[in-house]
């Protein structure tokens, strides 16, 4: 029931995205705003680079001892009156959630933004069970209205323009007076808020994700900017937290360190507007809170990354900085990647979760420019890990035969320097002549991917090595 990946059609998806004028307009925002804001936030905090080291170390340490921290955390959750449900895969996770909903007789379920919920295809399962899932994050709400998945892990509707959202609201909010102005961000928000208020109050179960699970206290932590997470988890009778295993951190102090890099990396804020810590259900002396508190702890492929080079990917705290800074994401947006997680983090994580034979384009569609790694708050070597996926593909002969034979042909020459010199000397002279006086090619049959869009500069003639050898022979020019 999880969404069917279109990652094998990445090129077709990218082609469509590049031709989508509304999408290209919307992506202009990503190319500018996120980057400037993060840079300013990092600049304003002298210890930011040191905090990134510390954030990396906290997550790396936790992953090394994940079994111990999960045990300690479970004990604390249980002691606080909460319930932990372990789910090996998406199906077990969906079942755990639906079992809770059925047992409490739920009809309506509100949801805070949760990428793991998208990963396990929860909304479709909730609907199939006859319940109504209501996304309460504005972006996620819009995406749900449109029957889409988020195109960005922190800004789900970043692929849309305001005009498109207005049209969606007019289509779905049938009560809307045609004369009412909802053409501004503010009026759109007010309209969504009016609808969602009723849903918050009506909900029987509230489902949120978690940014962190704290082993020391059994606490789950969420950060939001809209406050929808608080209403989702405080108003219904039952609060269900969905979290994947790598959300564990040892202590609240660690959470403090990670929060200092999270919002700065994501949106350039010092802190998100709301940071909410939940420990167990409502206690008798609490003014509010749910009667039941559940955590569904989901593996879904992650434990197989532990102990491999891909373990580093599990440090990810889902800030989105990598995609905000990615030239490929800037060109095509998130949906082209064809599954749940886009951008550089998706290019590494997706093959681990759905298989490199399905998601092979993702780690290949990168220039390895390294800008993602340069802004990652937990210093994940994303290009290196994408390269590791390419190595797995090479080992398993998954690349197209033409790519592989071209590479073999080139490698054969490159490892035979004398032959290489002779062959390239001839080839470059021929290409130089073919390039003629224009000094470039408008079309080359073996590099159409290049020449369909730009010219190929022609070589100058003889190779450097042959000219160098010739010059050295003459007196006065030897070095």
């Amino acid at each position, binding site marked *: 029931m999880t969404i069917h990946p279109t990652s094998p059609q990445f*090129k077709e998806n*990218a*082609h469509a995205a*590049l031709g989508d004028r509304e999408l290209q307009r919307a992506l202009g925002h990503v*190319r500018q705003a996120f980057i400037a804001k993060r840079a300013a936030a990092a600049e304003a905090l002298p210890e930011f680079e040191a905090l990134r080291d510390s954030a990396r170390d906290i997550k790396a340490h936790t992953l090394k001892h994940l079994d111990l921290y999960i045990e300690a955390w479970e004990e604390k959750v249980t002691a606080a009156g909460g319930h932990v449900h372990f789910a090996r895969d998406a199906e077990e996770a969906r079942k755990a959630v639906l079992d809770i909903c059925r047992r409490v007789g739920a009809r309506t379920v509100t949801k805070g933004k949760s990428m793991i919920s998208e990963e396990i295809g929860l909304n479709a399962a909730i609907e199939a069970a006859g319940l109504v899932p209501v996304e309460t994050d504005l972006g996620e709400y819009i995406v749900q209205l449109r029957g889409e998945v988020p195109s960005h892990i922190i800004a789900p509707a970043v692929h849309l323009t305001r005009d498109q959202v207005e049209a969606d609201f007019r289509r779905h909010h049938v009560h809307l007076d045609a004369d009412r102005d909802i053409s501004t961000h503010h009026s759109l928000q007010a309209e969504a808020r009016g609808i969602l208020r009723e849903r918050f109050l009506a909900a029987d179960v509230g489902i949120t994700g978690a940014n962190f699970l704290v082993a020391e206290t059994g606490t789950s932590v969420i950060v939001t900017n809209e406050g929808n997470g608080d209403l989702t988890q405080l108003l219904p009778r039952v609060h269900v937290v969905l979290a994947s295993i790598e959300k564990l951190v040892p202590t609240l102090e660690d959470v403090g360190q990670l929060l200092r890099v999270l919002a700065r990396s994501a949106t350039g804020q010092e802190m998100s507007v709301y940071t909410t810590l939940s420990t167990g259900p409502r206690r008798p002396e609490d003014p509010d809170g749910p009667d039941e508190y559940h955590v569904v702890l989901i593996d879904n492929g992650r434990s197989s990354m532990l102990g491999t080079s891909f373990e580093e990917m599990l440090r990810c705290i889902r800030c989105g900085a990598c995609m905000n800074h990615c*030239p*490929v994401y*800037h*060109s*095509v947006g998130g949906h082209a990647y064809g599954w749940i997680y886009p951008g550089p983090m998706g290019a590494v994580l997706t093959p681990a979760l759905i298989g490199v034979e399905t998601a092979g384009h993702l780690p*290949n*569609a*990168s*220039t*390895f*420019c*390294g*800008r993602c*790694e*340069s802004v990652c708050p937990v210093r994940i070597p994303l290009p*290196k890990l994408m*390269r590791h*996926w*390419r*190595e797995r593909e*090479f080992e398993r002969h998954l*690349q197209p035969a033409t*790519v592989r034979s071209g*590479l073999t042909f*080139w*490698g054969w*020459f*490159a*490892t035979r*320097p004398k032959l290489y010199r002779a062959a*390239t000397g001839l080839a*470059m002279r021929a290409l130089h002549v073919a390039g003629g*006086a*224009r*000094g*470039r090619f408008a079309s080359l049959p073996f*590099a*159409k*991917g*290049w020449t*369909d*869009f*730009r*010219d*190929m*500069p*022609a*070589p*100058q*003639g003889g*190779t*450097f*090595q042959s*000219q160098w050898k010739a010059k050295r022979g003459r007196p006065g020019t030897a*070095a």
Partner: protein
Amino acid sequence: MDGRAAASRKPLRRDVRVGLFVTCLVDLFRPSVGFAAVKLLQDAGCIVEVPTQTCCGQPAYNSGDRATTATIAAQVIDAFAGFEHVVAPSGSCAAMIKRHYPELFADDPEMLRRAEELAARTHELVSFLADVMGVERVDAAFDGTVTYHDGCSGLRELGVRDQPRRLLGTVRGLDLVESANTDVCCGFGGTFAVKYGELSNSIVERKVGTVVGSGARTLVAGDLGCLMNIAGKLSRMGSHVEVRHVAEILAGDTEAAPIGSPTR
């Protein structure tokens, strides 16, 4: 360090033995960049030699073929044994040797030692001139407005940023202007440019937009891969912005036609 101010004219040493890793693209497509690099190194007081070579191995490395890459790397390690420094007119190839060769031999202690030893004495050309040889000015003239594009590997893996701008600032008649987003990739990415041509094109379109927007008449960078990509896009668009390797400008060696321009 009082002597450093005059380093470009009176080097402290005249016997620094440098092996030039010319890079496959310069070797095959634009030998004039290699000769400009030789001139700059010699002017800085280096004795330059060019051992027989092919490529640094990036096409294989980035395609996931570690075995071929290791064979090529071992070849480079052998060819450049014994030089005091190894210099490449490319941030990308220098970073390959400096940052990635050691990773290739993580399981082979002897080769790892040799890879690390080579990495320690390998440099990108302009940062080598500025940081190692103490070159503070060049003896060159170039009439016009120039903008510099930061190649990704040089910038992020080797910290090459200020050195080329500083030296370009000493070229007589040259007016250096900054483009927007110089730290953003041009979309080349080696085989990426051919395998994902349409995507690569959309990235280079944004890049040339910033170049044209800067008002510069000439774009320079330290990597021929980026330069061929940007030059190819500019000429396809019918732009008159000229494209050159930074070494050509710094060496005052602009006899060759700009990249992708008609021969003259």
